[in-house]
């Protein structure tokens, strides 16, 4: 499991509120980030709470992909401590 917390992610997101992100439709993102369904569910709920549910997440929470993208941006924004889980930044550019 990636060393993260929903609270840290939400705090980061609340400072950027970057909704205009491209969604990388890469099926392995879920595996690369080692998030399970419950992780993604929590992130989606946190973003719902933060944005008052204004359409940030896709209707069916396949929306998972978009959540992953936001979370991925959060991870690569961290400079210290280094991530211990291998993310693949070149897939996001």
């Amino acid at each position, binding site marked *: *499991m990636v060393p993260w917390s929903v609270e840290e992610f939400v705090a980061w997101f609340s400072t950027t509120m970057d909704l205009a992100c491209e969604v990388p439709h890469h099926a392995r993102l879920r595996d690369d980030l080692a998030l399970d*369904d419950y992780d993604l569910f929590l992130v989606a*709920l946190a973003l719902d709470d933060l944005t*008052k549910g204004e359409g940030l997440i896709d209707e*069916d*929470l396949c929306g*998972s992909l978009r959540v992953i993208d936001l979370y991925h941006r959060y991870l690569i924004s961290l400079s210290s401590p280094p991530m211990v889980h291998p993310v693949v930044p070149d897939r996001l550019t």
Partner: protein
Amino acid sequence: MKRQEGSSGLPEGVSRPSLLGRRYSLVPLLPSHHEALYGMCLQDQIAFRWRYRGAQPQFEAFVRSLYGPNVLAQFVMEPKAVKGAVAGLQVAYNASLQDGTVYVASVSSAPRGSGALEGFALLVRHLFYCWNLRKLYLEVVEFNLEQFWSAVERGVLVEESRLREHTYFYGRYWDLATLVLYREQFEDFEASHPMLFAEGRQVSDDARQS
């Protein structure tokens, strides 16, 4: 004495167990759902994980199995954006109302991913609203655990038993774990995520007033 009523027609401070979530609704299982559920349960990514474990029951036997006498409540999960579509099935079964326990199971179509958990949360809330249950049991084969193991790590679910090497699949035997969701844990979850259930209450109240 004049009774104090809230907008739901119930006494002030009492909520009805809405089956509306943010993206999904739970609707009663009807014959019109049978074919879609049959097809879903036989999908290759689901068939070996769900109750039939790779077997293909005849359609009539499948339908009979949906209405077993041990079912307490069950609902089809429907995306609110696509009325009538079948996204999954949420079931409560083998209840012991004397002991305050019931088993719960959830299956969803492959692309839904974490969305299935919204339907599951709606079922759990319905169960705790309508029955004086203490513990909800989930029987989970080892290879299914990774889908939501973080819920155990976070203390939302508790593993309370494990049958070693109980279930055969793919050349080996896998453990069968029993996870437990306590009422208190769910109430904490519900209080922490009011947005998940807020729309359901809003829509219900709007529909009643219209």
